């Protein structure tokens, strides 16, 4: 039935393209030609060529370079308090100075070393935990499935930030605990999507064939299912990176993540709320958060379009 649906969907999709074409009153061969051109264009369309993905990649690249060479690039020491406080942006301090007289540009650059590696780390953690739990739940079913998915439901019943806040407040406010908290609230998404994929893949012929050849359940998971899950999970992770940066900086903004004097974007935005005359204190670190999250989302969103529609629907955000 699923196969029929996909088949019909494709046919209808193609039909719709022609139909909504404003020039369809023209000669039939012209319409055909247009359709052919469209098909060719679509075939050319690798996700890596879309302007959105390229923009995202470039921005991420810039941020990565900034993170690796932070100490070389940044004009000043991010922790040095040797300038007058609250200086407006100038030729000397492009982003101005903050409430302790530190150079904000240097702090924003060094902030990449906090936010990006941690976001990567926690997304990988959440991805591994969620994927393994979801795959095991989906493949073996029964009580494992029951327990895992009910836990996921429970976590998802809380707004992410509240649960993360409770976890951090309980464990003590520091960056490590903030990362842990975000992992705790992030894994269920992976578990859900992976479980769904495994449930539908389980019935496929190649899995049945491998089972008949005597493969164990674990072997099926590792050999037959893993490659099929890799794509969707990678896309989900790309989309999740942005969320991770947002949540982590949000916790730091509330004072529950990075502690002073660490150069962390969220905490820097918070410092800006003390003095609204000095707009530059908050604006630049915030813009850095926005840019990096936007880049991850551009990338993730384009990659998702490259997945097959049924899988893409499962991880629509």
């Amino acid at each position: 039935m699923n196969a029929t649906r996909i088949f019909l969907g494709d046919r209808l999709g193609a039909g719709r393209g022609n139909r909504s074409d404003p020039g369809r009153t023209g000669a039939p061969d012209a319409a055909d030609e247009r359709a052919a051109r469209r098909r060719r264009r679509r075939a050319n369309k690798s996700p890596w060529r879309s302007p959105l993905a390229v923009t995202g990649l470039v921005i991420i690249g810039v941020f990565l370079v900034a993170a690796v060479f932070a100490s070389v690039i940044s004009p000043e020491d991010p922790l040095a308090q040797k300038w007058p406080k609250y200086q407006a942006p100038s030729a000397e301090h492009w982003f101005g100075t903050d409430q302790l007289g530190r150079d904000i540009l240097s702090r924003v650059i060094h902030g990449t070393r906090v936010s990006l590696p941690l976001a990567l780390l926690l997304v990988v953690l959440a991805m591994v935990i969620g994927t393994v739990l979801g795959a095991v739940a989906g493949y073996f079913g029964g009580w494992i499935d029951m327990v895992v998915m009910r836990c996921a439901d429970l976590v998802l019943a809380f707004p992410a930030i509240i649960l993360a806040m409770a976890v951090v407040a309980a464990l003590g406010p520091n960056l490590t605990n903030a990362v842990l908290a975000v992992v705790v609230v992030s894994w269920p998404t992976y578990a859900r999507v992976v479980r769904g994929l495994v449930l539908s893949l389980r019935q496929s012929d190649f899995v049945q064939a491998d089972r008949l050849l005597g493969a164990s359940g674990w072997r099926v998971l590792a050999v037959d299912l893993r490659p099929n899950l890799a794509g969707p999970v990678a896309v989900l992770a790309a989309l999740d990176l942005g969320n991770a940066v947002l949540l982590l900086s949000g916790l730091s903004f509330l004072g529950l993540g990075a502690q002073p004097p660490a150069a962390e974007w969220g905490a820097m935005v918070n410092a800006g709320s003390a003095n609204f005359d000095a707009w530059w204190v908050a604006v630049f670190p915030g813009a850095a958060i926005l840019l990096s999250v936007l880049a991850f989302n551009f990338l993730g969103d384009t990659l998702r379009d490259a997945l097959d529609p049924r899988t893409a629907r499962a991880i629509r955000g």
Partner: protein
Amino acid sequence: MSTSSADTGVDRGTSRPGSAPVKGAAPGRGTASAKRRSHPFARFVLVRLGVGVLLCLGITILAFGLTHAVPGDPVAANLGQRALNDPAAVAAFKAKNGLDDSLPSQYWTYLTNLLHGDMGTSQQTHRPVWDDLGDKIPASLELALAAIVLALVIGVGLGIVAAVTRGRWPDRIIRVVSLAGVSVPVFWLAQVAFYVFSFKLGWIQAGGRLSPGAIPPDDITGLYTVDSLLTGEWGTFGEAFSRMVLPACVLAAFNIGVLTRFTRAAVLEALGNDYVRAARAKGLPESTVIRRHALRPALTSILTVAGLTFGGMLAGTVLVENVLSWPGLGQYAYKSALNLDLPSIMGVCLFVAVVYVVINLLVDLLYGVIDPRIRLS
């Protein structure tokens, strides 16, 4: 070709953690109605209710466990240094809060109290948590209502435009805008908006629900805008309304992005159906096709997202509420978390999660009402 994909488990409730929807038990839907043909809808309702109650019970365990299985010491957090040195005071505090009992018995006490409407006493305000929540809920509710209306109108509108102009420039622009909406850190957006519109331009007032000295309207619903209208206090209404504009817009920004993308996908999916083809073939104007044939079926999934978004908004507003000093649930939760105020955190978590489950349940039931295929499948 049912819209319910419970058989695959890849259901449409799956989303990103920010908007974190819950599908109580996706498989329940298919099996429940298959077992008995006579009252499929009644059975559907019962199964959903049962799952909801179980989920609520799980939530109490999680909220309880989370706040108890932690190194934070509520005694040290709540007593002053002098009281801490006095063993009698420490013992009295422990006895009063039942901190000496075993965990299961503490949980049991908590649960029975809860069923009697007693959520404990806040260690910050020394008032019953339920009273504290009662003060905060209307503020958050008012803000969330305003934001969801705004987000629905703009988000669904943009989503439809994007779907209709698929692949052309309006669609592309809307895509970038909605991606920007979900990418912007709300706490920063709130600050920037406050700086620009309130601090620099002075167009709107922000911070709090009313100006510091103002007297709130009589408490009828607790929503200041509604109450002031009911009592005819126009000045108060203007004030309450204008102060809500900024937080509501900021809160809506993220959700506009989510709703736009969801609507676009749902409408596109509906446009791929045979009956849309048939409607076009019989010569209906495109606007009718969109409105009657594509939007109707898309509404069910838009409804789900909107419901869950609303649930998330109630307390997912910690950041906005803190920046714009909106005295709602989020701010209360934040203050409780900082002070290790266990009963209050549990109260907020519990309330929000239960609301979430209830909304989820309502959405599922509405689904059944709107789409007969789901309750009768």
